[in-house]
């Protein structure tokens, strides 16, 4: 089976700053590749390369076995790679279905009489969300009235509906409490089980481990290795990330509880 995404030894430098060096990993259909690392480890740089925001300087980047170098996020989207950013790109005051179709609205008619196909829009949004396990009675309610986890779900469902084969989730649990994080991780597992390739960026090994298939560890722009789940335990993953500093992990847990 050809991997959906494969990167070998990719690197990126901004001027004299080397942000990423010699990173290799793979994203397969029906699997979750987790990218873990502390702040400044190069997670964002890797994601920007995958989503077409920046281009890599060295190494190779394959999509469906073909060598690529994306010029823009649009090109990445056309290749089936959708990114759900931390800020989610939703407009809180707009209704769920209008957000779902924003920028790619379904229409009826032509020319000056072209109008929104509201019935189809509502129906598709409702169905797509139901497929992800969110059953909204009213897709006319503003997105702002949804919980953080549900908003993530709207963004993920939108990416899937518009033909994504790979979904990149940038710190989806960072702003969420413990319970909502669990909700989002369930959607991640659901997307995986529907045969999508998922890239999950996080700095929390406890969020990554239950859903992940493969773990790419980054530190100071370098790869500490790409491990299969069978090759690494959650304790080892945490130790690798924190550099043995249990206190950091403890602090993180405390922060999470007070959120």
């Amino acid at each position, binding site marked *: 089976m050809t991997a959906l995404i494969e990167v070998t030894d990719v690197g990126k430098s901004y001027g004299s700053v080397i942000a990423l060096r010699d990173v290799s990993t793979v994203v397969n259909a029906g699997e979750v590749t987790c990218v873990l690392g502390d702040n400044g480890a190069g997670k964002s740089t890797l994601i920007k390369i995958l989503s077409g925001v920046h281009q890599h300087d060295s190494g190779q980047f394959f999509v469906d076995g073909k060598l690529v170098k994306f010029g823009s996020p649009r090109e990445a989207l056309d290749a089936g790679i959708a990114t759900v950013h931390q800020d989610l790109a939703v407009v*809180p005051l707009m209704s769920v279905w*209008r957000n779902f179709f924003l920028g790619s609205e379904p229409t009826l008619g032509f020319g000056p009489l072209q109008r929104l196909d509201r019935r189809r829009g509502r129906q598709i949004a409702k169905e797509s969300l139901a497929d992800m396990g969110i059953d909204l009675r009213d897709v006319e*309610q503003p997105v702002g009235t949804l919980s*953080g986890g549900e908003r993530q779900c709207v963004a993920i469902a939108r990416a899937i509906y518009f033909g994504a084969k790979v979904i990149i989730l940038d710190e989806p649990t960072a702003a969420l409490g413990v319970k909502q994080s669990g909700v989002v991780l369930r959607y991640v597992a659901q997307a995986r089980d529907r045969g999508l390739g998922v890239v999950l960026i996080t700095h929390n090994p406890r969020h990554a481990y239950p859903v992940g298939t493969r773990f790419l560890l980054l530190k100071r722009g370098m790869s500490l290795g790409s491990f299969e789940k069978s090759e690494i335990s959650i304790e080892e993953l945490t130790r690798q990330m924190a550099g043995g500093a249990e206190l950091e992990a403890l602090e993180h847990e405390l922060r999470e509880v007070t959120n």
Partner: protein
Amino acid sequence: MTTVESTVDERVAPNSLTNRLIVRPEIGALIGALVVFVFFSIFADKFLTMGGVATWLDDSATLGIMAVAVALLMIGGEFDLSAGVMTGSTALVTAMLATKAGMNVWLAMLLSLVFALGVGALNGWLVVRTGLPSFIVTLGTFLALQGLNLGITRLVTNSVQVSGMRRTGGYESSGFVFASTFNIGDTAFRISIIWWIGFAALAAWILVRTKFGNWIFAVGGSAPSARAVGVPVARTKILLFMTTAAAAWLVGSINILRYTTAQANEGIGLEFQYIIAAVIGGCLLTGGFGSAVGAAIGALIFGMARQGIVFANWNSDWFMLFLGIMLLAAVLVNNTFRRRAERVRR
């Protein structure tokens, strides 16, 4: 899975009942309009006569056209302080081209429209290009236009007004379209009322039924998010500024053809009335929420109160007090909604 569904439904059911009412931005304005209507029907004798109705509808009409355009712009997250003076500028351009350059009124109006769209595009371009608040950018255009109106009028006519429209070619036909009256029973109603209703209906349709309308809400609600999903933010905003300018041209044309004289200081100070009418109609000052129909109703409240106070033989000073209270009430209602919708649950 069942747990997720049941918790979601629990939360949605009570929400949707209250939300259904509050979600309509024009509800507050509609209730306000009914209250004002009933109040003056009781306290002012002539308010409910045909002549009275024609008077307050006329007062609301030109204000309403502008309020609707300004509402679209406000939903798109921007202000246009030059909107008021634009109604004067366009009237002056039309009047000068027709009376001094001897053009046919239709041609003069066409050139005036081009001028308006140009200023609107400049406003929009400056705002999206510099990222400065539109409040300050359009304050600049407002002052510049005010100076131009007075300066050029004085240079050309040696006075502060341009008159003589009645003798120009095409006055009859253009006057029929923009400034005539129609009769219901024995009472003459201004054609501007038709323009107002038509423009409000068109704007309402565009806002909630078209792709462009969706984009207006999006660029006002969260421009970065809109950009991220491929909405042409700059184009949408520039088109909104041009729409406001075009509406100002329509009002300027209605005024010049009706009064046949354009004053150089016309329209100054009206920009706040437009914004007030839009806010009473349910527009948020922060953008992303509002209604075209609501803004039209906001203008109606304005017109009914202003004329109702005259009919009741009260001093018109009281109008400002009324306006202030109305505005505060509207802002409080709007704010409650926004907090409800933007509340983040974690």
